[in-house]
């Protein structure tokens, strides 16, 4: 049977908070001089408490799907700040569903600390103003990621009546639920709905996966073996190849069919594939992997 108890099978929540600084225009309309002014101001405020990172290729690095120029990682809190992306300030934090509310509290406390130095763009009706009008309101996006390598085989019923869109990453390793708009709802509602939604989906995925292992384990095993053979014998592997084969390798590793590679190592390969150019070659040596029926 699949072991669903490990850390990597947990659902994770990503909180994204957007803020713009008055009286500047939003990032895509900023002049170079204003961009520099905001960049310098944020640098002065963030650098004493954060570690900064500048990608080698400006604006090419992706963080949860967003292009960034520079990243600041808070020294003592799990918060990442991307200045001057779509909005002047884009805060990210990642949390386990059980720690969602404390993660939000920590995020909002940091946001309030920064608000001592400038005024956020705010409107009585639209709330916090963002470049994309869909994010106005709380300007808070709650994304839920569920590690679900078997999702290709399952037909899942997603939580009904919730304001969520379903994104299926490619490869279908993760299922993503995320709220569309935060206008007219409180942050508490957003957090609770997201948490309930992902836990319901997680339970449904678990029972669907258990059922699959009873009824279709041969087919699943066969796909894992094929993925192993292809990955081991390929002269070079692109992200597209990994998109197709990684989920099956994960299932193989979880069930002990694929050996000599750990889930963590596979995740490292996955992370490399996500952060590199779509056609870049991956430098991981898969040749030591073996199959155990």
């Amino acid at each position: 049977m699949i072991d669903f108890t490990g850390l990597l099978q947990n659902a994770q929540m990503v909180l994204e908070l957007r803020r713009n600084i008055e009286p500047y225009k939003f990032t895509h309309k900023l002049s170079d001089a204003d961009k520099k002014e905001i960049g310098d101001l944020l640098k002065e405020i963030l650098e004493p408490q954060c570690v900064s990172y500048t990608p080698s290729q400006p604006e090419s690095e992706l963080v949860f799907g967003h292009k960034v120029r520079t990243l600041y990682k808070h020294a003592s809190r799990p918060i990442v700040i991307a200045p001057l992306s779509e909005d002047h300030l884009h805060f990210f934090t990642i949390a386990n569903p059980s720690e969602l509310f404390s993660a939000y509290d920590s995020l909002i406390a940091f946001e309030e600390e920064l608000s001592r130095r400038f005024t956020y763009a705010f409107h009585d009706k639209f709330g916090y103003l963002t470049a994309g009008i869909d994010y106005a309101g709380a300007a808070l996006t709650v994304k839920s990621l569920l590690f679900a390598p078997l999702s290709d085989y399952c037909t899942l019923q997603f939580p009904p009546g919730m304001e969520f869109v379903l994104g299926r990453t490619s490869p279908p390793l993760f299922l993503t639920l995320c709220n569309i708009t935060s206008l007219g709802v409180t942050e508490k509602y957003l957090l609770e709905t997201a948490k309930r939604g992902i836990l319901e989906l997680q339970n449904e995925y678990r029972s669907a996966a258990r059922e699959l292992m009873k009824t279709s384990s041969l087919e699943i095993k066969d796909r894992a073996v094929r993925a192993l053979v292809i990955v081991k014998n390929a002269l070079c592997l692109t992200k597209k190849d990994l998109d197709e084969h990684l989920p099956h390798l994960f299932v193989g590793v979880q069930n002990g069919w694929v050996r000599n590679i750990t889930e963590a190592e596979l995740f490292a390969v996955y992370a490399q594939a996500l952060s590199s150019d779509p056609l870049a070659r991956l430098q991981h040596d898969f040749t030591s992997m073996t199959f155990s029926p």
Partner: protein
Amino acid sequence: MKHKDCDNCHQDIAFCYKYLEKGGEKRLEMCAQCPKLREIYGETSPHAFLRCPECRLDVHELRRTKECGCASCYSTFESEIFSLLQKPASGETVHIGHKPQTGSDLNLSEKISSLHLALNDALQHEKYELAAQIRDEISSITNGRAP
């Protein structure tokens, strides 16, 4: 000063349309509901001609991209933005959540922030009893606050 009327409808002027004809510039002055507007732009709503005074964003670009250029756009295109937004399940169409903090709130926030730092420090040094006390103190402060 003589009050100007729409060239077609004799209503108050809302728009002035300039164009070139036979080498010279011509002016057409129209009211907000003028049928001539439909001929020119295919629309009669005055909103179709709005521009943000700060960033010069026009309503067509807003509809196409669903992006504002600055905070003033939200006031300029208020009704247009409400019509473009997906309506939340609650039926509310105005912001009801967290708001920017005032002076007294900021003092509270600073206190919570320093407590969080103290909590992290206590956990790092495995002082779990102290960490529990700090956690309770944070909870008691944040109980009355959003979310």
